[in-house]
């Protein structure tokens, strides 16, 4: 069998932390097939792929591409070998257009000049060939996350990659977008591209991959043909034991009190014809999970920013326990009781150069100050306790940037839950988390709910929204097109939500 790539006995140790990220890891992928690389957070998947893409150098081991031994010491070398990677955190220039991003580094020139027209034409052709809902001239900053990811894939296609690495590509996509992505991947495989998909979503592994390599604790625990292994076995191998997936919607016993209310919130964008949020009203109650579903670009991102105080509404009011808090800054909201887990954990949710301890206290540094001075012993004690309570791997003095994505999310969750007063906004709380960590987040959420906290859950993971929410508001075009609760919600499936999310079904707002 001809292999697109073979990695043999790869060893990678990080001397700063002493972490053995890859311990004699081997992996191989036949040409024109899809390999799923599965494992928990910190299992070493990303490190292995960074080595393959030339972002990290292995301490030991060898790599062969198309049967030939190679040394990949930079992404440029990887590109020359036909290897392309789409990162979990997208690497695009927001100010540039789609076609500018796609051709970046491979600019289309006519003599010495850049040829914009030819560039746009080439990229448009590429977009049409793969049926992406994009325009070559659009500015990337105005795209949804799903679309941005498509731009990343286009970038790779433009470079004629033969081996495409995707790092958790479905993490932020809506159900329908995932289907579209998979269709694209299948089409690429037909054209001879080999694909490695980093993921820990069991269903996706089954649906899309031909082969499966499972990692745990920096080692490979097994490589399989996907057809020959079932989901339970995969999950057992990933976490080392079988996990229950069901979460019970346990209830809160107290009174149904309103905590947060939005009234007729409208958000106009400069130069846009349609408002980003249009006359949005809802209430969040104590001991209740209010779920929000919507395809990217339909207002959920704006809702998140509005609730966090980053944008101010053009019209309408926000009430917190009866008090008008419309237009409060993040600082004022923090004082009045906001706890908020943002979807963008690196740019908004943490300071990667600062220590874990300092990230944990940044929202309430006043509590750790005496006479204007930081109480360092108190900070360390608090941080050590929180890190232990939430099973976060890392020392109080370590930089947040040295943690894995999953651990960073756990840290943010821990900080916000500790900060919590009576409501919390969770946006994509389990994005990039493995099964076990997600489950612990769900349990935390249900625990908060029992304690009478109002939870607002914005998530593109519809399984999660359906499993946890007591009510679900579906957004389409900046409006709430459906508010499902009670029996209607019980009967709802992902397909039902999907129909509302795509604007196929409207109305049905029961109002609150």
């Amino acid at each position, binding site marked *: 069998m001809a292999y697109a790539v073979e990695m043999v006995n790869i060893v990678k140790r990080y001397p700063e932390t002493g972490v053995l990220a890859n311990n004699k890891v081997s992996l191989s992928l036949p040409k024109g097939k899809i390999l799923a690389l599965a494992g928990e957070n910190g299992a070493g998947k990303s490190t292995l792929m960074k080595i393959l893409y030339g972002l*990290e150098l292995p301490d030991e081991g060898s790599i062969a591409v198309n049967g030939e031994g190679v040394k990949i010491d930079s992404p440029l070398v990887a590109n020359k070998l036909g290897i392309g990677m789409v990162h979990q955190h997208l690497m695009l220039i927001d100010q540039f257009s789609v076609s500018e991003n796609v051709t970046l580094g491979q600019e289309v020139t006519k003599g010495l000049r850049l040829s914009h027209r030819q560039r746009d034409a080439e990229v448009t052709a590429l977009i049409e060939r793969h049926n992406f809902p994009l325009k070559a001239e659009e500015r990337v900053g105005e795209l949804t996350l799903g679309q941005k990811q498509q731009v990343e894939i286009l970038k790779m296609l433009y470079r004629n990659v033969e081996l495409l690495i995707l790092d958790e590509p479905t993490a932020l996509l809506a159900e329908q977008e995932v289907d579209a992505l998979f269709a694209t991947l299948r089409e690429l495989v037909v054209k001879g591209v080999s694909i490695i998909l980093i993921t820990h979503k069991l269903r996706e592994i089954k649906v899309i991959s031909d082969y499966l390599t499972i990692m745990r604790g920096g080692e490979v625990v097994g490589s399989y043909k996907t057809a020959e292994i079932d989901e339970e076995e995969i999950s057992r191998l990933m976490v080392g034991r079988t996990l229950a997936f069901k979460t019970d919607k346990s209830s809160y016993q107290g009174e149904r009190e309103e905590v947060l209310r939005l009234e007729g919130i409208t958000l106009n964008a400069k130069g846009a014809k349609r408002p980003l949020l249009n006359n949005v009203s809802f209430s969040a109650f104590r001991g209740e999970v209010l779920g929000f579903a919507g395809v990217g670009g339909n207002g959920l991102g704006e809702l998140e920013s509005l609730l966090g105080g980053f944008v101010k509404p053009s019209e309408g009011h926000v009430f917190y326990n009866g008090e008008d808090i419309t237009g409060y800054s*993040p600082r004022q909201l923090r004082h009045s009781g906001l706890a908020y887990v943002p979807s963008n954990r690196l740019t908004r949710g943490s300071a990667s150069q600062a220590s874990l301890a*300092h990230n944990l206290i940044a929202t309430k540094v*006043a509590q750790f100050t005496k006479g204007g001075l930081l109480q360092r012993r108190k900070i360390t004690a608090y941080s050590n306790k929180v890190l232990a309570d939430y099973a976060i791997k890392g020392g109080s003095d370590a930089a947040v940037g040295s943690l894995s994505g999953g651990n960073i999310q756990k840290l943010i969750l821990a900080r916000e839950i500790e900060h919590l007063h009576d409501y919390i906004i969770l946006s994509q709380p389990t994005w990039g988390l493995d099964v076990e960590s997600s489950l612990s987040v769900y349990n935390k959420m249900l625990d908060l709910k029992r304690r009478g906290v109002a939870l607002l859950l914005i998530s593109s993971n519809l399984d999660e929204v359906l499993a946890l929410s007591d009510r679900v508001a579906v957004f389409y075009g900046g409006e709430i097109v459906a508010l499902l609760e009670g029996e209607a919600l019980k009967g709802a499936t992902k397909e039902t939500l999907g129909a509302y999310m795509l604007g196929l079904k409207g109305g049905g707002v029961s109002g609150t």
Partner: protein
Amino acid sequence: MERKIDLPLILVIILLALLAVVISVFLLSGDPLRTLHYFFLGPLKGRYYIGNFLNSMGVLIFGALGFSIAMQGGSFNLGGEGQIYGGAFVATIATFGLARLGVVAPPLALLAGALFSGLIAALSGFLKLRWGTNELITTFLISYALVLVVNYLVGGPFLDPTTNLIATRKIAPQFQLAKILEPSNLSTGLIYALLAVVVVNFYLNRSRRGFELKMVGFNPQFALYSGIRVGWYTLWPMFLSGAFYGLAGGISIFGTYHATVKEFSSGMGWNALAVALIARYRPWAIVPAALFFAYLEAGSRNAMLHSDVTFEIISIVQAVIFFFITSALLKKRGGRHG
């Protein structure tokens, strides 16, 4: 938790800088061995030279603290040249009016200079806050203009006609800092500089304000989200930065020059910036970095006096340091992705 000191890297850069000295001396000097002898050993030959060499450290420390504080808060202050010169001038003028106040007069005059330069730098912070102008550009441009304005004032309205220098009147003896190592220029200014290092380090690492300032520097979006007053920390580090530059100027006058001489501080701002870069903006590291840079500076001056090279040799060394440090920093930043 913070930018870690990368000792081997710094050593490599120092070696490269020294290598640049040796190479340029061989290229530029008719008697390279004699030049090198004076370059490397000149600064250490006796009290006078050692004192002068250590004296220039003080100004470098104040200036480097100025640049570093802004950097720690996520802002650039490239206005060191003008802010040192302007601060020196204002402190000088202030002594003329304050002489009657006795013991409190010297610190008040220094503070006046610091306040002036602080406000000049904060103006750039304000422009950034209000209109999003890039402080890197505005600090530089304002500083450039400020140098010309002070040149005019020193050479015109405040010119002391009794000397042949283009300079202001001398400050009164009560303002002059005590000498430590006569006959050299070394004054208590160096001690104040070392005290300033302790204070700034304490402020950045122990105080709540310092914590917030650094958070804004690390990630302003995160700081905003956490409820830190990001707007205030666009102004405040710039003000502090300018104030330290202003102190650098004032201390130079009170300790060494005793009058604002036209363009006496030319190049000090950039040298201080080089020191801050070597130290990666950490207060403690500024002390050895300033020592190193002051030594090179004194070496160039000695080589120039006793041999046939020009003072520009220090500019070559500075350029080498800028080049390697910035490229090392950029590489680090690029490598963190993925």
